[in-house]
């Protein structure tokens, strides 16, 4: 809560911002969950740039929009409840707002809870009047029977105000016009700045930035903050009593019923498990056919390509390298990653859009509390389903550094979509088969594996909190946004383009060179034996202890760049040792594994180890970047590996004792 040390970071980023346009610099500020980024996206469209705030791990974005022949620059500051920062994000917002980085500040508010939002508005207005209040989500508020008198709000605040519904685009042109008007009547000039009227202490000190209602400008301790915030909220109540009209003051009945259903003791956790299983069921049922189809299509296409290369007279070694190496690895990744992702991501985004995820985090919070961790860790775990590197970056939402580290280290216990296909394929071929009933069985099994990862997360979080990262859970306040009707079209577009194709593209890019290297390893020989089987041979005795084999362990090591190539590596390693078969369907995959000595235990342990081994290279690099520490990166590498090996050792020992 240090207010006295603003940095000079604003002056270091301004030149970069100014280069992008010739118009105004407009800062976008607002509380979290008020649709600030929707306003940002609606105004700037595709003309956005993102970057990293100097010296801090805070992403920020700016974009441009044209108005009257000028390119105005819109800077999106991180969501903040007040100018008294409690996180790195809020510090960035405070610095940018208070150090005068912009010509006009647009303060986005949620029409449904204007009173709370006015806290930030009034804090900002205590040192500048070059601002526009954007009362967003006005249509949602109207549905709840909440009406805002914009003209009166303008009069009381003394600055332009505009009602918007950024989702539908309503009010945005008026917003742009009022930004220009605010800039035209610009007053921010150190000399001509109005005196600080709310601060009791400085009596008009123009440089007073934070003094709103404080005893003195320099009183930024807790008591000053309490006094100033109380004064502001009284003012906010007064303003709202004049501009906000409620048709009905009761909290929305349907929302409340739904909230209670999703969180109460009898139904909260069961509903959560059922939702998870249903999402997996739909994913499995939907993905099976397209995956099989793509795989056999690519196999046949591969044969055609092979014939063409042969006819063109290329040497045998080249088509083997290109087809068995690069082509087969890439097509495996596409066939078995694309369909599940194209189904899972939209479903997940749908849950996110509905507002379900904060409720899930709410339900699990107490367990995290007992583990000495932050409740928001469930949200970063959810991000991990997509990509663990994204999950690690997402850990920035956790304010306490200790709890953030716990979340970073344990993130890879959530299987990302690179490991998803491995789990799905092995469950299908070894345990469940295909078909509607089998899909239900697969979904239940997959849910079980995910729960195992969740359990490991709890266990390791608790372990870390009571050993190397000793400490108790710090305070957590989580906003529960209202349930919103998801915009289905946008959900599909966003999840397919932003997530599915992005992740798939990245996977394919790593799969191609990896396929080449693995092919070389499988075909270059050392002393009459391929490099791959040579490595596998060395690891074999060690791997057997854990119910795996040398090839499996080698495959896990080789898929460090990207988890999705695990199965293609194993296929290549097994087939290069003589038994070359044309595997056009998953059942032939089964034959191949059985021929190489796999049992149900092997399949099970591969899945366990897939959930708990080490994070992929991208995730490790991200952890290094986020924590800035080699030590914690190493811990993130070792901890899941030890967990996985221990679990596999136990299952292998039990299996040996029983059979």
């Amino acid at each position, binding site marked *: 809560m240090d207010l006295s040390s603003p940095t000079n970071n604003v002056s270091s980023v301004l030149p970069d911002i100014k280069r992008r346009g010739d118009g105004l610099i407009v800062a976008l500020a607002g509380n979290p969950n008020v649709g600030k980024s929707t306003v940002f996206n609606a105004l700037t469209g595709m003309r956005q740039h993102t970057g990293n705030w100097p010296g801090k791990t805070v992403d920020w974005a700016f974009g441009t929009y044209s108005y009257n022949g000028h390119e105005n620059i819109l800077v999106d500051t991180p969501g903040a409840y007040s100018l008294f920062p409690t996180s790195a994000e809020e510090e960035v917002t405070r610095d940018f707002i208070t150090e005068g980085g912009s010509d006009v500040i647009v303060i986005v508010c949620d029409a449904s809870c204007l009173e709370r939002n006015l*806290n930030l508005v009034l804090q900002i207005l205590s040192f500048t009047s070059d601002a526009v209040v954007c009362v967003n989500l006005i249509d949602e508020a109207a549905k709840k029977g909440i009406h805002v008198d914009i003209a009166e709000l303008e009069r009381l605040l003394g600055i332009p105000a505009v009602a918007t519904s950024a989702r539908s685009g309503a009010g945005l042109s008026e917003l742009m016009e009022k930004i220009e008007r605010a800039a035209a009547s610009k007053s921010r000039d150190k000399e001509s700045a109005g005196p600080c009227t709310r601060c009791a202490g400085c009596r008009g000190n123009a440089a007073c930035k934070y003094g709103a209602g404080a005893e003195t400008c320099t009183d930024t301790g807790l008591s000053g903050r309490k006094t100033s915030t109380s004064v502001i909220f009284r003012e906010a109540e007064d303003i709202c009593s004049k501009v906000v009209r409620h048709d009905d003051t009761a909290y929305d009945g349907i929302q409340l019923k739904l909230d209670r259903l999703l969180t109460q003791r009898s139904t909260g956790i069961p509903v959560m498990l059922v939702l998870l299983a249903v999402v997996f069921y739909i994913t499995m049922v939907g993905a099976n056919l397209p995956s099989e189809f793509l795989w056999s299509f690519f196999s046949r296409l591969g044969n055609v390509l092979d014939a063409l290369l042969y006819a063109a007279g290329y040497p045998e070694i080249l088509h083997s390298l290109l087809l068995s190496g690069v082509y087969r690895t890439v097509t495996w990744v596409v066939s078995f990653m694309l369909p599940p992702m194209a189904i899972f991501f939209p479903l997940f985004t749908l849950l996110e859009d509905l507002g379900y995820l904060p409720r899930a985090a709410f339900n699990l919070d107490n367990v995290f509390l007992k583990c000495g961790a932050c409740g928001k860790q469930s949200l970063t775990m959810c991000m991990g389903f997509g990509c663990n590197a994204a999950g690690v970056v997402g850990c920035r939402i956790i304010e306490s550094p200790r709890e953030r580290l716990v979340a970073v280290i344990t993130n890879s216990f959530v299987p990302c979509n690179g490991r998803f296909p491995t789990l799905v394929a092995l469950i299908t071929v070894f345990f469940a088969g295909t078909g509607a009933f089998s899909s239900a069985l697969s979904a239940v099994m997959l849910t079980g594996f995910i729960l195992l990862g969740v359990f490991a997360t709890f266990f390791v979080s608790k372990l870390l909190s009571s050993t190397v990262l000793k400490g108790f859970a710090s305070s957590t306040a989580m906003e529960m946004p209202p349930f919103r009707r998801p915009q289905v079209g946008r959900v599909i577009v966003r999840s397919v383009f932003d997530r599915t194709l992005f992740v798939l593209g990245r996977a394919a890019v790593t799969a191609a060179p990896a396929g080449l290297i693995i092919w070389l390893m499988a075909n270059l020989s050392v002393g009459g034996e391929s490099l791959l089987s040579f490595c596998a041979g060395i690891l074999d005795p060690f791997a057997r202890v854990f119910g795996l084999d040398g090839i499996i362990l080698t495959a896990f090591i080789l898929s460090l760049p990207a988890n999705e190539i695990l199965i293609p590596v194993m296929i290549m390693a097994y087939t290069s040792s003589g038994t070359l078969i044309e595997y056009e369907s998953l059942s032939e995959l089964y034959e191949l594994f059985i021929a190489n000595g796999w049992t149900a235990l092997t399949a099970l342990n591969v899945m366990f180890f897939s959930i708990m081994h080490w994070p992929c290279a991208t995730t490790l690099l991200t952890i290094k970047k986020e924590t800035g520490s080699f030590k914690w990166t190493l811990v993130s590498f070792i901890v899941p590996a030890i967990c996985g090996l221990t679990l596999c050792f136990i299952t292998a020992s039990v299996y040996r004792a029983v059979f």
Partner: protein
Amino acid sequence: MNIYDLPSIPVGRSCTIDYVADSAMAGRLYDLGFTPGASVECLFAAPSGNPRAYLIRGTVIALRNSDAAAIKARY
């Protein structure tokens, strides 16, 4: 009228904040609108009874019981 810690006030009962005890989180609670005189109601609780979600100034904020205990309210 007695003063209670916020977590001990039953779900569905509307109450008025009397004061917020000094704690590491007090400043943040103020920012979120938990200031003296504000009315607050616990709307629902997690399966274990912790955390609980409160309606405050039109928004729903989930607080852990240990944090919410700094808020003293009457009804």
